[in-house]
């Protein structure tokens, strides 16, 4: 290979028309297919969102919590997760960069920090999922599978508040339609917010409730979703889950590469291209998150 001269044309074999190694090319081709897969998922999400319009839950009502803080803090926690992932992308480039300079100790340092960042992201995602599954305000489902929420003074309240219990005290709550209905009847300051996000005052709310209420929803899973349209939860679990699985595999691959770096495999090989290849994968995971962040949490 090293004797390859310019006389050989790019198309006669034995040359590298792309000036990139086989491994790196294949990583890129894999990433293209993976990018198209994620675009298909996010387009599917977009389809449902356009289809359900006003009924689709808005992210500010869904992701409102931050560990150890009370009250509503929309977007803050995902912003933190985004920061963690960007940071781990930076440490990854640094590791690749020191790999080019054959500085083993610095590669080990920055690769380890990348793994720590990946693990922190996975932990945050577990917390986020936990909160999403546990639910926040609880809601009531109608016969036509629409979801409405308890409101107070034209602002979202919660079933817990109406029933006078703490929704986050760590115990499991169960309410049936009758008891929530009775509470709504007797507390005149409460109204409801129906699925298209318009508020009904007490009188209209009671009427709507008695006519339509079928089930009290607590939390979100693949069957029910207290935040609104059921598909929202399905997409959330599927897309963030698929992304989280990529992060998880990334952490495992990074660990394997780190062990090889420590053992001196790449030092012996004469180049750290393996770190570069896993780096490509790691940045791709960050890239996907940038889009997930926008379409699930911002838009």
């Amino acid at each position, binding site marked *: 290979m090293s004797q390859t001269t310019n006389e050989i044309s790019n198309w006669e074999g034995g040359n590298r*028309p*792309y*000036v*990139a190694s086989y491994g790196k*090319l294949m990583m*890129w081709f894999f*990433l*293209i297919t993976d*990018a*198209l897969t994620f*675009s*298909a998922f996010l*387009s*599917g999400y*977009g*389809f*449902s*969102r*356009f*289809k*359900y*319009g006003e009924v689709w839950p808005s992210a*500010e009502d869904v992701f409102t919590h931050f560990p150890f803080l009370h009250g509503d803090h*929309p*977007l*803050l926690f995902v*912003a933190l997760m*985004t*920061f963690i992932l*960007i*940071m781990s*992308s*930076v440490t*990854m*480039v*640094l590791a690749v*960069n020191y790999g*080019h300079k054959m500085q083993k100790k610095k590669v080990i340092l920055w690769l380890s920090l990348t793994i720590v960042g990946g693990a922190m992201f996975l932990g945050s995602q577990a917390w986020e999922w936990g909160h999403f599954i546990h639910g926040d305000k609880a809601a009531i489902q109608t016969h036509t599978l629409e979801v409405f929420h308890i409101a107070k003074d034209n602002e979202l309240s919660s079933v817990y508040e109406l029933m006078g219990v703490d929704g986050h005290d760590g115990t499991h709550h169960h309410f049936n339609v009758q008891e929530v209905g009775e509470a709504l009847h007797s507390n005149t300051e409460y109204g409801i917010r129906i699925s298209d996000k318009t508020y009904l005052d007490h009188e209209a709310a009671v009427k709507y409730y008695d006519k339509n209420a079928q089930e009290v929803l607590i939390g979100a899973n693949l069957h029910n979703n207290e935040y609104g349209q059921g598909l929202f939860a399905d997409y959330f679990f599927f897309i963030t889950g698929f992304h989280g699985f990529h992060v998880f595999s990334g952490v495992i691959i990074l660990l394997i590469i780190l062990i090889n770096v420590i053992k001196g495999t790449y030092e012996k090989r004469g180049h750290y291209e393996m770190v*570069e290849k896993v*780096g*490509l994968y790691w*940045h*791709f995971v*960050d*890239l996907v998150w*940038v*889009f997930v*962040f*926008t379409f699930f*949490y*911002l*838009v």
Partner: protein
Amino acid sequence: MANNDEHKGNWWIWKVFWILLGVTSFEVALGIIQPEYLVGTQVLGTSLLNQIFIILTLVKAGYIVLVFMHLGFEKKSLKWTILLPALILIPYLLFIVLTEGDYASIMMQ
């Protein structure tokens, strides 16, 4: 390949980091404030705010792919081999699927 002169130090990595962090903070700030003018103005099927989010996202994606993934410094033919399928197929898919979603929404009413 990777040993261009411009990559001697680490400053270019941190530059991109600050850009990504700045853009993300700006997005989060807009997302929390929800400026009425941007939410109320409709452009191409969604609010102006959403369009701004999408443009900023593409800016971030550009920095990640071109600098962090080093694609901006690869050979031109490799660059386009990787970018073209995505740049053609994804907008195409989005156009079809979102148009259809809009139609499905009209059909439901």
